[in-house]
């Protein structure tokens, strides 16, 4: 067999990695050439999400930012030279050489070398504590310097400069932004928008200096540096970040004689080929149609085009839309198309809401029939609609200003998704078109969660969530699928609707509920749902006469039913901490009643094989020894797992066990749409695996970091970082609000992870509700939680004290006998349920 041809990629940034993913899928498929794949990665780590770089300062780690699925390079037999810069291309011999002295032949070469931050040659720019903001290595240096600094200045008030300013702000430094032009983000937005943006930034205590040309950096008096401006003014700062713009990393191509643009950039054609027919260039180093595309989405498109071309498939890069939407320090900023109305005859409509600092502008063509551009500050909810109008050249309504005016009557603004062609790109992060979404729906992805899972749409920036939802609903409607969100045939409401009815009308019994709002006799769906809502709202004893029949068998008998009709028993062991005496009691009880014992994943002990009639006796012994029910049977708080924390661990930063116990005791007994698991880790080594829990808490030197909506199990989901560096009081306040908001709004049996996936607006929205109290609900949620916490009772203690309730645990209403069908055999010195054959054998013996 002939030796495989070699495909070498220089650069493992976001675009280089995207190319690798694309080529790995096509390599050797459908008769295409199969290449040996090799890549050079100058940085010390593989591709990571540079767009989210500033989240490194709000708690994300380098691992969190990684874009590389574990095993990707190994599984695809890709040779990676990490931390090694390719430094020369010999085009004649087709050989690449690197800093570490490696030389590799190539048949095809892809340049994905990206860009570098331009540092203006201001005298003093090489002083210590002067940084650029591009790589994780840069961030680590900035972070280290930030520990001793009090203030920082960013030179450059564009998009990247404001991102860098957020990093300074996150380090609690006095933050300055210095911009040469008269306004912030001068490329993307106009004067009016710049003013609103500036006000917002200043409100957050960021000092903005526009129209300033830094002429000299020298030793400061009160801080490390003094920055002198051309107009004679000056400021002082301990750290300086340079972010005035980017330049293509094109030196490799330039040195090898490939055609370059006049002002830099590697010239490419529609197939991303350079002037050398074996060399491609993609991403920020490439110049197409005289333009460098400094955004990731066009880079991704180029990656796909180059991969397709190499694999012999037709595709072409035809330019890309440079519209952007982002959040800068919590402020929505969006720019679409011709934001500055430079098109001939263009007309402008502007909406300004002074008190709320919202600025919206649309630019339309001469006869007001087509959208040319838009700028949105402070509220970018219209972005998705406007972008689609522009990209698909859709006719505008007669009064185009309606597109940006507030909808006071609750109507949804903008275009219907039906107006969009199938080719319309809905999710730009993952390049998902309307057609892709329709296909996914037709193939059975009929929920938002399923759509996200199979297409990845709206899992990037989340900006398209609303549009994806609209496409989904329209498609379901078209397919004749009744989008029925009713809980069941007995109630024409969602769980959330039912929750509101019960809460607002103070409904306390199922009979009352079904009489007023439902039909029939109920079922195994609505009854436990109603019971759970009653418990969340009013927290009555769940086996009260009017509630007992509503409970699932687990709740009804306060145990987990097993496959042979026996139950398991799980006493609460808060935080996983248990005294030797109590541990002995568990052993004694298990021995006395011949129960199978197993340690659970939630750091407690599970006792299996209790017959219905044994439950009260066993629990009496446990309650007498000081145990409480562990609610292992309930859709409620299960466990708060913890590591030993600073009390014992030499790495521990805070008392994780104490916090876990406090939280477990606070939220125990809270009935919710599904089970809830917590964990608390005492340091970032994360031994309690808090980031796989519904609520995860990690100690840092500055306080507690709060993660939410993680999940292990069938569909693992990494938790999202909701808030950082919290003190104990704020931590509990936020968890109160978070849990109660989940209880209030989630669907039946919807874990927090799925709930988050379905939540319109995602993490940002949740932050607004929980932290900024955007719905004005915070106080009410806290009060509701306080009421649940204040009315806690151990259900088993209440039950064993009430002879009437104990009747339910008699196996037969008319006889004092045991169920002869329950048979155990021994295995590994403990009992287990007999299987069918064993049961027969034992019966015949």
């Amino acid at each position, binding site marked *: 067999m002939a030796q495989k041809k070699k495909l070498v990629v220089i650069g493992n940034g976001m675009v280089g990695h995207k190319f690798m993913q694309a080529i790995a899928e096509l390599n050797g498929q459908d008769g295409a050439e199969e290449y040996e794949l090799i890549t050079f990665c100058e940085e010390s780590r593989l591709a990571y999400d540079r767009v989210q770089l500033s989240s490194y300062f709000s708690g994300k780690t380098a691992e969190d930012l990684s874009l590389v699925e574990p095993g990707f390079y190994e599984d695809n037999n890709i040779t990676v030279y990490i931390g090694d810069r390719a430094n020369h291309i010999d085009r004649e011999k087709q050989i690449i050489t690197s800093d570490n002295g490696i030389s590799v032949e190539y048949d095809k070469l892809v340049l994905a070398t990206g860009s570098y931050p331009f540092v203006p040659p201001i005298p003093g720019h090489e002083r210590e504590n002067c940084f650029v903001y591009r790589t994780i290595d840069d961030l680590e240096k900035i972070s280290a310097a930030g520990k001793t600094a009090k203030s920082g200045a960013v030179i450059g008030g564009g998009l990247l400069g404001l991102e860098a300013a957020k990093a300074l702000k996150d380090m609690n430094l006095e933050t300055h932004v210095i911009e040469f032009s008269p306004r912030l983000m001068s490329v993307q937005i106009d004067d009016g928008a710049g003013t609103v943006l500036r006000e917002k930034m200043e409100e957050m205590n960021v000092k903005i200096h526009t129209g300033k040309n830094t002429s000299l950096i020298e030793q400061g008096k009160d801080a490390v540096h003094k920055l002198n401006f051309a107009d004679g003014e000056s400021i002082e700062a301990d750290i300086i970040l340079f972010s005035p713009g980017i330049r293509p990393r094109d030196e490799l191509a330039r040195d090898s004689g490939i055609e370059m643009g006049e002002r830099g950039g590697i010239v490419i054609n529609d197939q991303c080929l350079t002037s050398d027919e074996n060399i491609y260039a993609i991403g920020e180093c490439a110049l197409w149609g005289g333009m460098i595309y400094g955004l990731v989405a066009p880079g991704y498109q180029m990656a796909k085009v180059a991969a397709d071309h190499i694999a012999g498939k037709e595709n072409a890069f035809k330019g890309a839309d440079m519209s952007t939407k982002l959040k800068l320090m919590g402020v929505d900023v969006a720019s679409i198309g011709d934001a500055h109305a430079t098109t001939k005859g263009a007309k402008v409509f502007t909406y300004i809401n002074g008190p709320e600092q919202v600025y919206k502008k649309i630019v339309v063509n001469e006869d007001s029939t087509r959208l040319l551009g838009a700028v949105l500050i402070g509220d970018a909810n219209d972005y998705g609609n406007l972008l689609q109008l522009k990209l698909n050249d859709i006719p505008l309504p007669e009064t185009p200003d309606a597109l940006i005016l507030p909808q006071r009557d609750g109507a949804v603004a903008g275009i219907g998704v039906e107006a969009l062609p199938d080719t319309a790109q809905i999710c730009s992060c993952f390049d998902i078109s309307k057609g892709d979404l329709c296909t996914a729906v037709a193939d059975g992805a009929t929920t938002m969660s399923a759509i996200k899972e199979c297409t990845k749409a709206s899992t990037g920036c989340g900006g398209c969530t609303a549009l994806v939802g609209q496409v989904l609903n329209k498609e379901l409607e078209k397919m004749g699928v009744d989008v029925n969100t009713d809980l069941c*045939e*007995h109630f024409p409401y969602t769980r959330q609707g039912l929750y509101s009815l019960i809460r607002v009308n103070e409904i306390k019994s199922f009979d009352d509920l079904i009489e007023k709002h439902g039909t*029939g*006799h*109920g*079922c*195994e769906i*609505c*009854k*436990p749902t109603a019971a759970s809502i009653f418990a969340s709202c009013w927290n009555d004893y769940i086996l009260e*006469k009017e509630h*007992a*029949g*509503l*409970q*699932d*068998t687990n709740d*009804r*008998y306060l145990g987990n*039913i097993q*496959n*042979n*009709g026996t139950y398991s028993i799980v006493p609460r062991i808060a935080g996983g901490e248990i005294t030797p005496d109590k541990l002995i009691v568990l052993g004694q009880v298990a021995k006395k009643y011949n129960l199978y014992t197993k340690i659970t994943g939630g750091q407690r002990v599970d006792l299996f094989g209790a017959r219905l009639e044994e439950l009260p006796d066993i629990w009496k012994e446990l309650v007498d020894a000081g145990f409480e029910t562990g609610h292992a049977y309930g859709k409620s708080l299960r466990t708060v797992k913890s590591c030993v924390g600073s009390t014992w661990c030499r790495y521990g930063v805070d008392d994780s066990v104490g916090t876990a116990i406090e939280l477990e005791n606070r939220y125990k007994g809270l009935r919710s749409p599904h089970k809830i698991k917590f964990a608390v880790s005492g340091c970032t080594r994360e031994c309690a695996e808090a980031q796989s829990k519904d609520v995860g808490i990690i100690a840092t030197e500055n306080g507690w970091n709060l993660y939410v909506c993680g999940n292990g199990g069938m569909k693992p989901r990494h938790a999202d970082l909701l808030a950082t560096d919290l003190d104990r009081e704020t931590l509990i306040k936020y968890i109160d609000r978070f849990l109660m908001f989940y209880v209030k709004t989630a669907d039946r049996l919807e874990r927090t992870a799925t709930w988050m996936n379905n939540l319109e607006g995602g993490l940002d929205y949740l932050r607004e509700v929980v932290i900024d109290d955007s719905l004005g609900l915070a106080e009410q949620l806290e009060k509701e939680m306080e009421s649940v916490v204040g009315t806690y009772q151990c259900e088993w203690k209440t039950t064993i004290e009430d002879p009437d309730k104990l*009747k*339910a645990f008699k*196996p*037969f*209403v*008319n*006889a004092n*006998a045991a*169920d*002869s*069908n*329950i048979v155990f055999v021994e295995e590994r010195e403990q009992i287990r349920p007999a299987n*069918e054959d064993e049961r027969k054998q034992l019966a015949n013996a």
Partner: protein
Amino acid sequence: MQTAQQQDMTWHDICALNDIPKNSGVAALVGDQQIALFSIGKEAQVFAIGNYDPFSNANVLARGIVGSIGDTIVVASPIYKQHFELATGQCVEDETVSVESYAIRIDNNRVFIGLTA
């Protein structure tokens, strides 16, 4: 329940009517037969079917949640949630599966189950 077979039936006194919690079930033992009894609605209509769940091979149907599908009164098995019609013992999800159903008589607030001899 007024059938011709009634003459051949033996009626067993099981419990008081209010021993069965409203809209809920209890198990009873007659000879070696386990029977699930349910009381439905305000008028406390009583049904009896076998307690043995053929899907899980466990005696658990009395511990299921009762409710309705359309006009049919059913219980859902607490183990794998299949529904059984209380009036007939027929499984809703699988027409080849059913459990025994029993005649009921209420006399002076006592519940009687009729078993064919």
